């Protein structure tokens, strides 16, 4: 059982990272409602384990718990999702030019769809790096992968995202058919 001081310490060191927790959950689960539930569960779990956390990077510590909760949730609710491996080969998209990329990127909805359609392991490194601003070291700690593999994981994820962004939009394509 945590004492009063622990509770204050939790509110001061861990709770400030609630936005980070929610953002990661939102992008891993692709849904705000589910992200609220899982982020809440993760925060409660973090509180239970807070006795084992002494010092260090509270954000990375919390995000690691959030990530675990998200994958557990995905396994239970979308069992088919986690099968994609990070080292799968990607061919560059044909229409990929800096201009087409900039135009597609101006459209928030389209950007959201492109990111949402990437497999979870790609999404998480991109969200941690580009939205959360984590260092390679932090990404390695959060995703339990060797630090040496973070760079190549990001390279593949970015390639995937560029391709998704410059491909004809699937939603529009479906309308045309």
């Amino acid at each position, binding site marked *: 059982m945590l004492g009063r001081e622990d509770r204050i310490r939790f509110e001061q*060191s861990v*709770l400030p990272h*609630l936005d*980070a927790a*929610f953002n990661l959950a939102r992008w891993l689960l692709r849904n705000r409602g589910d992200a609220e539930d899982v982020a809440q569960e993760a925060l409660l779990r973090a509180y239970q384990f807070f006795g084992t956390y002494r010092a260090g990077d509270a954000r990375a510590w919390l995000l690691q718990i959030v990530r675990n909760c998200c994958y557990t949730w995905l396994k239970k609710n979308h069992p088919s999702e986690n099968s994609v491996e990070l080292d799968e080969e990607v061919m560059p998209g044909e229409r990929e030019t800096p201009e087409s990329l900039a135009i597609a990127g101006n459209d928030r909805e389209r950007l959201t769809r492109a990111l949402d359609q990437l497999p979870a392991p790609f999404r998480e490194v991109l969200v941690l790096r580009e939205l959360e*601003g984590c260092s390679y070291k932090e990404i390695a700690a959060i995703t339990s992968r060797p630090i040496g593999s973070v760079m190549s994981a990001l*390279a593949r994820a*970015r390639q995937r995202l560029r391709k998704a962004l410059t491909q004809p939009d699937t939603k529009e394509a479906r309308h045309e058919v």
Partner: protein
Amino acid sequence: MKCELSETLLHGYVDGELDAAGAVHFERHLESCAECAGALAREQILRQTLQSSSLYERAPHSLRQRILSSLPAAPESQRTAGSFSWLWPAVAAASLLFSILSWQFFPGSGRQAQQATLASAIVDAHLRSLQPGHLTDVASTDQHTVKPWFDGKLEVVPPVQDFANEGFPLIGGRLDIVDGRTVAALVYARRKHIVNVFVWRAQDGNLPSGSGTEQGYHWSSWQREGLTFCGVTDASPADLDELKQLFLQH
């Protein structure tokens, strides 16, 4: 021809993760490799796109409330309760007596209640500002745009400074109402967090220097040159203190 480095080192370079020697080495390579130079431009556009996209999704306030109220309560003396349970009625009586006495003999506690009201009004104002479209009336990172905007709108013009170099870029300003008085609000970013600094004339309602946590948000107040300042944020208390020091030094 595909250059291998465009899929490896290039990313470490874009992310600022190469050591100094590695970065210099890669820059030399860039001069002679068209493939990598093109890839670098692409990556920079992609990065800019992602970072300026407002894809970051903040937790709704209701979630924070839910979490705070669902954390198991942690009574102060859980561990000793078993062995000294007979003591509690006595302790309770003593503390009641003490609070009555202090109420009578230390009128300062009335000020404390006032401080608590003001702090919670400030946190409420902070929360309102986070609603879409409410953060700024004047959105600018330029202190020379934000400061004149306040001219004539308030009795005093608050000091406005951009602290981007110190890690607190100015986002803008607005007028707000806290506890019935019109105040200036300066808006800063701290990494992904928002900091509101409310400023008003000390004579209009003094908030003694102090700090605390309210509904999971941290606040800290200070005075300078007849003005009262109160910062509030969901970033850490240490961040808030850093900003306070910047205000006091400039």
